[in-house]
């Protein structure tokens, strides 16, 4: 007996050790529960991170545009009058952000914004022979835009570099038009401007329509073609915390009076799906946790009955109710802690097995699962607490045992 360990701990450990098989079973039960929770949590957060990354990495966190053009009814009703009006909404033309340099500099000063890149976007056609295809022409600042969308990561062929006469297109457009790297194509706009550009890069966003419509040219090229020389249609931004994008967008909108769209608002359906997924996994984890707690409690209740004699002896030797109660509380906590440690290890093994088993057809990882040590620490904490709470009822029962009855057994 170590002189630093209080009686309650010594007795709790000895009792657990003496009840070998029982202790082993309940610790395994806790371990399996915790293992499932750890595995599910890591899997889900890996999956969600992967989806988030896919969505985020092909679009800016926040896009600033000029406010929507609206038509207001000029005539106001005087007293006693009623006016019946029908106001037609105007079509939204491609239009420039006023004072965009100022806005850009203002945004660069914000602490929650990491990168700011002005872009010009407008509709155009790709013409080759007799076939043509509608595209969205995006003029970018090559150095800035890389901080908004990691285009080099998406390149299938060619390099991320643009001059005045270059264009980057998606894989689908290349296929539709039968074009490859180095080919020349003509880009025309509805206003009549046109230009012949060289394909210097082909990218894959993992999305058919994006691969078909999106094209990138130099900012000045787009400005020329879209007749917007010196202007931009939007300012794209990357923020520090992507999950705060909506709040930041609202604050920017009220600061600048511009229309600020966050990627969260643009993908609200996706977020609803994510939330539903998170909720359902929370429920599963909750019920697994409850069954772990019930398991610990039932084993300890049985153990109190089995230990009746021992409890009686302790009480007859001058042990207090509090001491007896703590012995059982500690047993619950220790079972929870050991079980969660074993369970974390089990969860870790499951995740490793998943990494090996779940692969794309080409052998690459389906998605990356990062192991956050916090997950294991939380699992251990929660399981220990669960053990402690589960032990309350049995411990109170043990403390209430009448020593005479307990000894007679």
């Amino acid at each position, binding site marked *: 007996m170590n002189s630093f360990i209080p009686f309650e701990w010594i*007795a709790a450990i000895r009792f657990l050790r003496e009840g070998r098989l029982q202790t082993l079973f309940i610790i395994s039960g806790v371990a399996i529960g915790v293992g499932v929770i750890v595995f599910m949590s890591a899997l889900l957060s890996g999956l969600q991170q992967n989806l988030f990354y896919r969505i985020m990495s092909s679009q800016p966190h926040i896009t600033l545009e000029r406010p929507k053009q609206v038509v207001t009814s000029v005539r106001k009703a005087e007293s006693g009058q009623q006016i019946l009006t029908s106001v037609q909404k105007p079509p939204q033309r491609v239009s420039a952000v006023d004072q965009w340099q100022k806005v850009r500099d203002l945004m660069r000063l914000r602490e929650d914004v990491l990168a700011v890149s002005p872009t010009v976007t407008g509709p155009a056609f790709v013409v080759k022979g007799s076939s043509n295809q509608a595209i969205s022409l995006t003029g970018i600042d090559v150095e800035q835009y890389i901080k908004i969308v990691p285009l080099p990561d998406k390149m299938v062929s060619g390099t991320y570099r643009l001059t005045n006469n270059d264009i980057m297109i998606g894989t689908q457009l290349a296929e539709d038009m039968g074009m490859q790297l180095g080919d020349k194509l003509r880009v025309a706009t509805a206003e009549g401007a046109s230009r012949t550009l060289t394909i210097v890069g082909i990218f894959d966003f993992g999305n058919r329509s994006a691969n078909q419509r999106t094209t990138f040219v130099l900012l000045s090229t787009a400005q020329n073609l879209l007749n917007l020389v010196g202007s931009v249609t939007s300012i794209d931004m990357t923020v520090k915390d992507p999950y705060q994008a909506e709040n930041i967008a609202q604050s920017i909108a009220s600061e600048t009076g511009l229309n600020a769209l966050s990627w969260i608002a643009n993908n609200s359906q996706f977020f609803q799906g994510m939330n539903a997924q998170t909720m359902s996994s929370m429920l599963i984890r909750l019920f697994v946790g409850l069954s772990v707690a019930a398991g610990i409690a039932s084993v300890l209740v049985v153990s109190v009955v089995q230990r009746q004699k*021992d409890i009686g002896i302790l009480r*007859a030797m*001058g042990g207090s109710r509090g001491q007896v109660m703590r012995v059982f509380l500690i047993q619950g906590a220790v079972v929870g802690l050991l079980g969660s440690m074993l369970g974390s290890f089990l969860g870790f093994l499951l995740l490793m097995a998943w990494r090996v088993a779940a692969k794309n057809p080409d052998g690459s990882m389906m998605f990356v699962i990062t192991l956050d040590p916090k997950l294991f620490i939380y699992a251990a904490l929660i399981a220990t607490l669960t053990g402690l709470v589960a032990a309350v009822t049995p411990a109170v029962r043990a403390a209430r045992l009448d020593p*005479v009855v307990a000894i007679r057994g």
Partner: protein
Amino acid sequence: MDSAVLALQAVRKSYAVGTPVETEVLHGIDLQLSKGEFVALIGPSGSGKSTLLNIMGLLDRPSSGKLLINGQDTSTMNESQLTQLRGKAIGFVFQTHLLLTAFTALENVMMPQLLQRGRPDEAMKTSAASLLEQVGLAQWQNNLVNNMSGGQQQRVAIARALALSPSLILADEPTGNLDTKSADAVFELMRKVNQDSGTTFLMVTHNVAMANKCDRVLNLVDGNIVTGTGR
């Protein structure tokens, strides 16, 4: 009165109080145990010996009457005060050597002190070891009690009862489950401890020969003490 380690005054005990089967087990017991006495309590089964022992050991409360331990009235004490007094003043030796099987002989003997002080220390270990030596089990101290014979276990129980140097040791048929040789050895050991340390003993027994070797014999019949009130 002052030298009485334990005094019972008109102690009655009833079970199933308030029901049609209410039974009074003890009918007004008056009794005093003086310091250093070795008293035997005999009586047929069902005479109330165990009930009396439980009351004297503060494990049970009388229905009426008073119990004084070292002159202190226990009838007004609450549960935790009783627990404390029980730990300090009274040692128990039971018929079935009630030892904690999860612990070694030495640890069982340390247990009363450990419960009192909360943490083990060297002094506790030393005194427990010397108690085990007193009962002749020095070389057995690190054995789990389950690996020891009945007589050895009972000697561990006696050593444990002595751990807090109580003024009174209550022994409930301590030799009942032992063969004659071990029984005699255990009795002699208790007698020796009684003479060496002046600890008062009350021993419940069915063995008349053994009872006659005690200072005084109390005969409990149907809840009354019928003989042996004098020395």
